[in-house]
């Protein structure tokens, strides 16, 4: 767990000294407005809303990764477990000041869960009482897109999706992250 401790230290350090803070409620309200507006725009087709949120997050992630790298000044992760620690203890720490718990690894080290004890995006939120939102809408789905976009820029193709959300009445908010493959942009292997 040495990598976890190092990540925690880096995250704390960057959060304290290098990051400009904004009011958390401003973030909550802004994000809430976006989701609510998407719901009306897509006529409460929550599958579409999830997809749009993911897409918006993807575009954010592809840019945010540069800020993450520039601020944290960390190098390439040695393995996917390190990556998970970095995401939780540095990434989420410096951008949202939360550190979701990394857990539920599969045996092949390619799949893990992030458990969110707190989620600033979802403070004050109650899903629409239309009988469908509770089953269909992933309110914080933008985060999945952010991870996907950011990791794609550092040569990791992943899939991220929420599997439970306290907003839906589940006990925990859990995101499942799966490493699909490392994107090799290097030369093809030697012929000899």
């Amino acid at each position: 767990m040495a990598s976890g401790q190092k990540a925690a230290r880096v995250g704390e350090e960057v959060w304290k000294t290098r990051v400009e803070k904004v009011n958390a409620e401003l973030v909550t309200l802004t994000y809430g407005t976006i989701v609510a507006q998407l719901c009306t725009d897509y006529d409460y087709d929550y599958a579409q809303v999830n997809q749009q949120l993911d897409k918006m997050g993807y575009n954010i992630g592809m840019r945010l990764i540069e800020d993450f790298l520039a601020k944290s000044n960390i190098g390439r992760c040695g393995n996917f477990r390190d990556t998970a620690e970095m995401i939780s203890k540095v990434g989420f720490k410096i951008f949202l000041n939360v550190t979701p718990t990394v857990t539920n690894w599969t045996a092949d080290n390619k799949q893990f869960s992030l458990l969110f004890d707190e989620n600033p995006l979802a403070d004050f939120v109650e899903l629409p009482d239309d009988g469908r939102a509770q089953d269909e809408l992933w309110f914080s789905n933008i985060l999945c897109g952010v991870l996907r976009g950011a990791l794609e820029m550092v040569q990791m193709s992943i899939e991220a999706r929420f599997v439970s959300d306290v907003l839906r009445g589940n006990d925990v908010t859990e995101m499942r992250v799966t490493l699909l493959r490392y994107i090799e942009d290097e030369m093809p292997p030697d012929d000899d």
Partner: protein
Amino acid sequence: MLTKCFRSLPFDNLSGLRGLSVLGPVFALLIISKAGSLIFHRTFPTSTPGAAAGPPGQTVGTLGLPGTSTLTTNDYLVLAGTFHGVHAITRSLTPKIPVAPSAGSSGRSWTYPDPTVPASGIESMESSFFRLTVFQTLSGTKFLLFTDPSMPNTDVLMKGVYERYADFVCKNPFWQMEMPIRIDAWERSMNQWLTRR
């Protein structure tokens, strides 16, 4: 096109006051996208154009160095593309040391001299007139900084450039990724960072 006169004014004042050399020893900054195309280039005046500061009668070229010729934008594009290729080649020139197959957790039968650091390609190149510092981000964008060879801490300088790039370029919603950078706020911030010393 490349030199902006407004930068030269405060520096004239500075040099008058403190007797420093007129402008900072940073010559040029190039940014190459991960696809290998030039998305930004800027040269910095190393002597005040037309002022008494520079040695009289000398032509000042691209890097502000005597004898260098001024490059056109097209030249820069070619240069960037060439460098992209050369960089890729230098990266694969890094020696690979064979290891026992079972030892490596990654399943490879070789390792780099320092197993914790992957091959990076050219990091710097130095001549008696300039030093080229290359920084490639993990996402593949390359920053090329041409400075005076005597300039210390170019890595710090580079880090500052990267942070400003992340802030003013990546966070600008109207900049499309992989597209040329034409953003005033970025130019201001970057100019200030690179020419204040």
